[in-house]
């Protein structure tokens, strides 16, 4: 679908987004921070008993097959999906327009779709000290056996809600409220100074 006059989306992090190396990086940077600037961030919810039908719709539209189990997920680089609550899933795409792709397939009998593309900011932390830095914010177990690849978690930092997906062995994607994103970003940078960080 051609949208000829689509305005360029501004990042809420921009005034505090300073590419380059920071903190104690004399011996190398141990985490890399970035904003993934996704085109689509959706939340899908199934009515009780309709979870399997919704999971099938997600597979049909995105090609991503959700693994069984609470908080299960999968990430193929361009697209990702994970469960964040019973019957509820976050689905993201690098490209815009994912909500339109679901239109008509998530019928009122199956559940609901909420387009949060403009309501959330996705921040990526990667590197050997990613778990260490994340543990400063979130009181959950980041070890790989407890938090497997692709899995999602709903939790909070300083009473502010966040969703996290493990998108690599030492990489996490954090979904925060857009209005809190700059504040979280600044805190994340401070927390990363100790290990040396690079903003890409």
């Amino acid at each position: 679908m051609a949208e000829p006059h689509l305005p360029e989306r501004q990042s809420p992090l921009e005034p505090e987004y300073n590419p380059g190396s920071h903190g104690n990086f004399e011996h190398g940077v141990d985490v890399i921070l970035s904003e993934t600037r996704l085109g689509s961030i959706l939340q899908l919810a199934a009515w009780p008993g309709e979870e399997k039908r919704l999971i099938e719709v997600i597979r049909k539209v995105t090609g991503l097959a959700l693994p069984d189990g609470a908080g299960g997920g999968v990430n193929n680089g361009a697209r990702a999906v994970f469960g964040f609550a019973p019957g509820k899933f976050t689905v993201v795409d690098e490209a815009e327009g994912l909500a339109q792709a679901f239109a008509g397939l998530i019928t009122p009998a199956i559940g609901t779709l909420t387009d949060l593309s403009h309501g959330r900011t996705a921040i990526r932390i990667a590197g050997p000290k990613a778990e260490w830095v994340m543990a400063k914010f979130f009181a959950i177990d980041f070890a790989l056996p407890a938090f497997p690849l692709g899995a999602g978690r709903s939790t909070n930092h300083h009473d502010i809600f966040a969703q996290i997906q493990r998108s690599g062995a030492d990489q996490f994607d954090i979904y925060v409220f857009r209005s809190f994103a700059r504040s979280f970003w600044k805190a994340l940078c401070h927390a990363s100074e100790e290990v040396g960080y690079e903003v890409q």
Partner: protein
Amino acid sequence: MLITCPYCGPRDVIEFTYQGDGNRERPQPASQDLDAWNAYVYDRLNPAGDHNEIWQHSGGCRAHLRVVRNTITHEILSTAFARGGHKSADNKAESRS
């Protein structure tokens, strides 16, 4: 204190919100049985021991949970989704199930 959410797994109590005594029976909204409403609003077992409670995982998956907590030791004996409505312990029997 850790509460094991059936969806999210063990989480710090700071992620949860207490939503009251889980032993109450809410009368039908149209009920004019004043004794039943009085019991729903005021009567509490207040046991020194295992207690049925409703909690919400407000800082996580936001599910409402039935939790059995020991009011003396704060031990969490069981957790389950509130949806389904089965009480998970019987205070009146004063025994752990």
